[in-house]
């Protein structure tokens, strides 16, 4: 076996000081297997060494929170016996190398996180970011990622009910694939990863272990003999069929109380799962690696511990339950092996061929893992741009609207969601294409809404504001479908934390997220950090993706965005200040990329949202959509398109010009449709709550939007909105 020295440690991605610390802790030089284990546990992905300090500031408490960050997924109370388990996770780097498998295994991984806790997955979502639509790789990456997400989720039979798709040149060399899953569990039957009890059997179940995904960096070339080619780290290949079996088998085993603790093997496979279980239970663990079911011949302890083969789980069972458990896994044709036991040693002790091959105190791997307080730089709020009259002179509202509706980031994403099974399980009551997806809680009156959002442009311009904004947008999207927002999960995609600018973006986004969550009582219950999203020194824009979840106590009160009936009144809730900086209009029509993002006023945000919820409770709202990218007119147009209706817009009473009014992206706004009969009632409630609103116009039967003295055909708008992506993909 290779002799471990500083260079080998560096090849494993460890820093010199870190290697020294390991030798000091161990009071000896670790062997190669031990070094591999340290490198896996101490790397950014498992140890959160750059982010931990800041994540502590996130707001994680709330009256519905059953489990916050720190477990496989977060858990929230949705009344009665029911709880929702959910989390979002990134699979960015693998998806860039192999889009299909990378995205597929991303979906597989997040679903395992959720059913590990005893929940049956009931909905998937995804947030995907690609480079410029002009970039030569974009189309293939998009096609591969969408096929991969669909390929995995469709096969398991979990509906993909929503998501978000962005294009921006900062992702040219580094796409983002974030997958989110929601599961349903009985509150009394939630499973955790904390091991307990001494001498309890440790069980390996699922697929066999191969040499998949053993970290490139940690593969010191000296490990290899003559068969280097054969042993090269390989991309993980997903097997959704096995995952479906694993899901059913685990849920079957969870029906009684055989399981003490359970943990899926995700990143760093057997290493992180066994260490985490022991660490949380303050126990030791002893494994005999000879017993691990292997797919390939002659796998070494090093490879077995670091393999990232998919569709595997580690379980600590009650004594005496092995046989019954084995029966279940046999029935589902899965591997099952007792590979070790819990001990009092507080160490991880590994045996192979009856020899001890590793012996490390658990604390060294978990608690003593490095934590950095990295240097970071604040981003100053950019100067507001003064748009001059001439800027707008030559512009026509109609053309601008068409341009925005066919903008890659605004256009309809049907090409994507048509490839996702979004109706399996028979409870999807709001399909993709709305503000949030909604699924019923099977057999009850309740439903849960979920949405994923990011706004890298805003975050890049001013991370603190951007961080707040994404949380607010998520909150608005949930309210817009009639749900009460409950909690979020977050996937923090950033560049290189060793660079002060990138670290600053991270710190300030997190701060923004935290402030907004606290103010809105919208806690973070789970999440994931993905750093080093950079290629050739060029990092991505800071991209926190927020996955929000809300509850509808009665699904019959769900709202949709399609306009309902002619003669109804359309209102904009919230004040339109005319903030164009960083809007899609400014960036793509005016070609102005500077300036601050729209300001977030948390008081107004909360007040507007709560008041909209009040109106909903009184059943006064007929359709609803929040105002996001593209501003008021884009939002109204989408409501017209969905409802196949027109709108007659009133003459502006605003002081700002019409482009600012129609296309600005001021925050905290919603568009609602109310009947004439209820208009007074609505007006009173809005006034009582000091909510600013504007009367926009009236729903028309004929398919036109009337502005000023002109009109635009909704069919025409619809074509531009629906066709862009389809045409782009078939070209």
């Amino acid at each position: 076996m290779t002799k471990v020295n500083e260079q080998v440690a560096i090849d494993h991605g460890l820093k010199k000081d870190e290697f020294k610390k390991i030798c000091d802790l161990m009071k000896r030089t670790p062997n190669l297997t031990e070094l591999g284990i340290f490198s896996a546990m101490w790397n950014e992905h498992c140890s959160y060494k750059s982010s931990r300090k800041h994540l502590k500031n996130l707001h994680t408490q709330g009256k519905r929170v059953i489990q916050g960050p720190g477990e496989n997924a977060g858990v929230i109370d949705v009344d009665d016996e029911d709880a929702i388990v959910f989390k979002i996770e990134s699979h960015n780097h693998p998806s860039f190398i192999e889009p299909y498998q990378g995205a597929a295994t991303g979906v597989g991984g997040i679903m395992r996180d959720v059913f590990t806790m005893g929940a049956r997955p009931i909905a998937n979502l995804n947030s995907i970011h690609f480079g410029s639509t002009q970039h030569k790789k974009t189309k293939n990456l998009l096609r591969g990622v969408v096929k991969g997400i669909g390929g995995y989720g469709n096969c398991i039979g979990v509906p993909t009910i929503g998501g978000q798709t962005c294009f921006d040149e900062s992702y040219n060399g580094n796409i983002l694939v974030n997958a989110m899953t929601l599961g349903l569990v009985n509150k009394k039957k939630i499973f955790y990863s904390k091991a307990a009890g001494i001498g309890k059997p440790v069980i390996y179940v699922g697929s066999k272990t191969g040499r998949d995904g053993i970290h490139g960096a940690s593969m010191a070339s000296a490990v290899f003999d003559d068969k280097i080619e054969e042993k090269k780290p390989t991309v993980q290949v997903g097997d959704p069929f096995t995952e479906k079996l694993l899901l059913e088998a685990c849920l079957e085993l969870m029906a009684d109380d055989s399981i003490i603790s359970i943990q899926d093997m995700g990143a760093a496979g057997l290493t992180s799962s066994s260490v985490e279980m022991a660490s949380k239970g303050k126990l030791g663990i002893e494994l005999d690696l000879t017993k691990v079911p292997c797919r390939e011949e002659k796998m070494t302890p090093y490879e077995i511990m670091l393999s990232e083969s998919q569709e595997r789980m580690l379980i600590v069972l009650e004594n005496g339950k092995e046989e019954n458990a084995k029966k279940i896994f046999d029935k589902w044709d899965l591997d099952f092996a007792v590979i070790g036991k819990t001990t009092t040693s507080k160490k991880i002790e590994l045996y192979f061929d009856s020899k001890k091959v590793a012996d490390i105190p658990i604390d060294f791997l978990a608690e003593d893992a490095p934590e950095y307080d990295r240097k970071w730089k604040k981003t100053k709020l950019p100067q507001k741009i003064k748009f001059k009259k001439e800027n707008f002179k030559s512009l026509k509202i109609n053309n601008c609207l068409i341009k925005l509706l066919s903008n890659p980031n605004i256009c309809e994403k049907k090409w994507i969601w048509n490839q996702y099974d979004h109706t399996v399980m028979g409870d999807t009551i709001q399909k993709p294409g709305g503000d949030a997806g909604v699924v019923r809680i099977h057999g009850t009156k309740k439903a849960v809404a979920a949405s994923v959002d990011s706004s890298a442009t805003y975050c890049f311009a001013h991370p603190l504001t951007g961080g707040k904004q994404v949380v607010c947008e998520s909150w608005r999207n949930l309210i817009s479908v009639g749900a009460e927002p409950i909690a979020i999960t977050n996937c923090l995609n950033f560049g290189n934390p060793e660079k002060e600018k990138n670290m600053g973006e991270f710190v300030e986004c997190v701060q923004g997220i935290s402030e907004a969550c606290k103010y809105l009582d919208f806690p973070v219950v789970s999440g994931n950090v993905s750093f080093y999203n950079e290629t050739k020194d060029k990092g991505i824009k800071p991209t926190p993706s927020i996955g929000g979840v809300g509850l509808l106590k009665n699904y019959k009160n769900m709202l949709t965005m399609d306009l309902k009936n002619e003669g109804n009144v359309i209102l904009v809730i919230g004040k339109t200040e005319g903030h164009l900086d960083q809007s899609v209009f400014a960036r793509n029509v005016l070609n102005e990329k500077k300036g601050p993002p729209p300001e977030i006023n948390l008081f107004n945000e909360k007040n507007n949202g709560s008041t909209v919820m009040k109106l909903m409770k009184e059943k006064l709202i007929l359709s609803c959509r929040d105002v996001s990218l593209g501003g008021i007119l884009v939002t109204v147009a989408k409501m017209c398109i969905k409802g196949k209706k027109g709108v007659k817009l009133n003459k502006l009473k605003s002081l700002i010009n019409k482009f600012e009014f129609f296309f600005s992206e001021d925050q905290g706004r919603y568009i609602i449709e109310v009947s004439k009969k209820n208009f007074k009632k609505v007006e009173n409630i809005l006034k009582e709550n000091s909510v600013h609103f504007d009367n926009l116009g009236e729903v028309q039967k004929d398919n036109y939007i009337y502005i000023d003295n002109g009109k635009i055909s909704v069919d025409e708008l619809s074509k531009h909105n629906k066709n862009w992506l389809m045409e782009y993909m078939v070209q």
Partner: protein
Amino acid sequence: MNSSVIIFPGSNCDRDMDVALKKFGFKNEMVWHDDEQLPKSDLIVLPGGFSYGDYLRCGSIAGKSKIIKSVIDFAKKGGLVLGICNGFQILTETGLLPGVLQQNKNIEFICKNVFVKVNNKNNKYFNSIDKDVLELHIAHNEGNYFCSGDELKMLEDNNLIAISYCNKKGEVNENSNPNGALQNIAGIFNKEKNILGMMPHPERMIDKFLSGEDGSIFFTNLLNNLK
């Protein structure tokens, strides 16, 4: 009426089908693929999903499962066998129905509502449905029906093309064909019309909050015809 839904490893519309059958009054039982005996049933359903991961060819491996022999016997004796989506694929792989379901023409998975024209009402499945066009939902990657010229002729001559993809008005044409299926075929019968294989999922359209309600018509009618 008693129904049985067969569960293969990888089936994923088994529960949905169970919910639908029960909602419309069937007494339904779930049957594991490894069993050899079928419970007493008036209707056997092979549900949708990805039996055996759709590996090799969709439905091919399920076609070799233990229970399938009993299903074949049951069908040959005239028992009602309904295959939805993957179930249809299994029926073609076992030879109970002619032809094969190939990958969709656009090589993409398709999940959306479609219209189908009911071509033959002289059978237990569609007898006394008053609509000629139903709105149903599809979700598949391999729904592109293909068979030999002789087989097609046999299907046509005997009026065995149960449903064809069409538009809202009932016109069967190229534009209303979602997946490239031969003659817009969405579902077919065997000669005796006790076996029906179809790609659309009626079980996903059983209340007004879902993709539509025409699935309710299908199940209500089926139950009535069996009484």
